[in-house]
């Protein structure tokens, strides 16, 4: 995998981040070094090993499907600057 300017710009774009030219220049060798370091893991055999999504075994935590207390509409909207008629107001879809 060639970690170059174009790849960094592409991945940043997928993450909804637009990097400045200086950031691209700075990040490219840094991220390349880190990604190369990650390949150390290739040295360890993990055939027949299950992945651990959590460090301790966790079972599904289920509860009865009954309504409980939650934030009311006013509270949910308290921290936004963009609201209208009790709704969040977002940017245009297209």
């Amino acid at each position, binding site marked *: *995998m060639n970690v170059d300017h174009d*790849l*960094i710009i592409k*991945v*940043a*774009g*997928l*993450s*909804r*981040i*637009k*990097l400045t030219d200086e*950031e691209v220049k700075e*990040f490219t060798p*840094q*991220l390349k*070094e*880190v*990604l190369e*370091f*990650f390949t*150390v*893991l*290739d040295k*360890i055999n*993990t055939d027949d*090993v*299950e*992945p*651990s*999504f*959590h*460090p*301790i*075994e*966790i*079972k599904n*935590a289920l*509860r009865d499907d009954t309504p409980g207390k939650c*934030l009311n509409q006013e*509270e*949910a909207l*308290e*921290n*936004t*600057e*963009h609201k209208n008629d009790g709704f*969040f*107001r*977002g*940017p*245009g*879809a*297209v």
Partner: protein
Amino acid sequence: MKSTIEYIERVSNGSVDIKKETEEVLSNLDSLNDKYHYLGAISTGLARELSNNVSIKPKGRLAGVYVSVKDCIAVKGVETRSSSRILSGYKPVFNATVINKIISEGAIIIGKTTQDEFGFGSFSTNTGIGIKQPVNPFDIQRAAGGSSGGSAGMAQVADFPHISLGESTGGSIASPASFCGVVGLTPTYGLVSRYGLLDYANSMDKIGPIGKTVEDCALMLSIIAGHDEKDSTSYNPANSKEKSDDGSKNIDYTKNIDRPISGMKIGIVKESLGEGVDESIKNKVNECASDLKAQGAIIEEISLAVPSEYALPSYYIIAVCEASTNLAKYCGMRYGKHESLKGNFNEYFTKVRSKHFGQEAKRRIILGTFARMAGFRDAYYLKALKVRTVIINEYKKAFKNVDALLTPTMPVLPPRFDEIKNLSVLQNYMMDVLTVGPNLAGLPHINIPYGMIDGLPVGVMLSGDHFCEEKLLNVAFNIEKNAP
């Protein structure tokens, strides 16, 4: 200074004028903060309200104790931003579970402590745009450690009864505790509820206490531990196969703390005393081992080759993958920084995120997005999760033979800011080499101050098996009592 527990007794029997005392504490916070930058927000109103409550009803296991809270933990009505500009102005409309618990026990919350933005760092030098970095209490030219730097610094400089709530993902409690010369306890993953914690990496985030003494940390753990149905990963003894000697029922972790440790087996991890660790720090760990031996413990050298070599890359891959998904929600819509609503949603979200995330947050988001992309997911993310299994198994095997593991906490003394500037990104990540193993495996671990070198504090770290906090605190207490 008298112990926190004695102070709580005095508050409880009404012999402390808590409102007056609170005013004194609050009046000194500004000047303290000017020098050290430990608090991103000072919660004067809340502190007064809580001290008033305590003055009316001076009861509770934390009655009158001042608590600072890492900025990534939600406190209702107090700006909570994980030291990130993207969350500027965000005042949660609810409390994290740990906050409700400490308030109901009489704690007085004084403010939110500074940290690396979202926890992304080992020195607290990655605070978000416009947020001052906490500095080391022993030398303001040096780092406080991270990411809970403000919490550990506050624990060191507070000249009033105080315990901080920190949070660790890969070493963010142990590291600053070591650099600031205080005790920092990271509990087993799931023992303390994460409800109301602003996630860094869900499968590794743990809230834990930072205080002046082992007893203070044990006291705080007794209050914050326990199952919470609002956190689906919270440990539920009734629903778990995990065997524990002390589990998570309502335990008083201070109760058996001073038991003698004669006959306990402590493993010194061979690899933790290898290359890259300062000789002077290694000497302190050996000194600590000699003391434990003198107290009747059995010291064994133990090798943990797989965690020592592979925990760091495995940790960073999982951490950035989880972080990059967690940070997707910060887009200027519901809380924090907003911009004027121009352009389509992609343009708007991109504008907000590009402008208000700091450099390290951007780096980790890009790394995590890359490692989860089609074609790379198996090679990075899934591989790291499998390596985590191997690492957990190796630790579990070790704990069949020993009660706790002893290592240094940090490989170096607190570095100067100009030295940190010269480190590469990868060299920064390497600073976590000793702390990531227990964090990745969800094991409880504790930093205990062990003397000074050249005027700077050194810490030793003890790690234990899952849910063996009681045993860990017992050994830690016995280290602390004889520490230089």
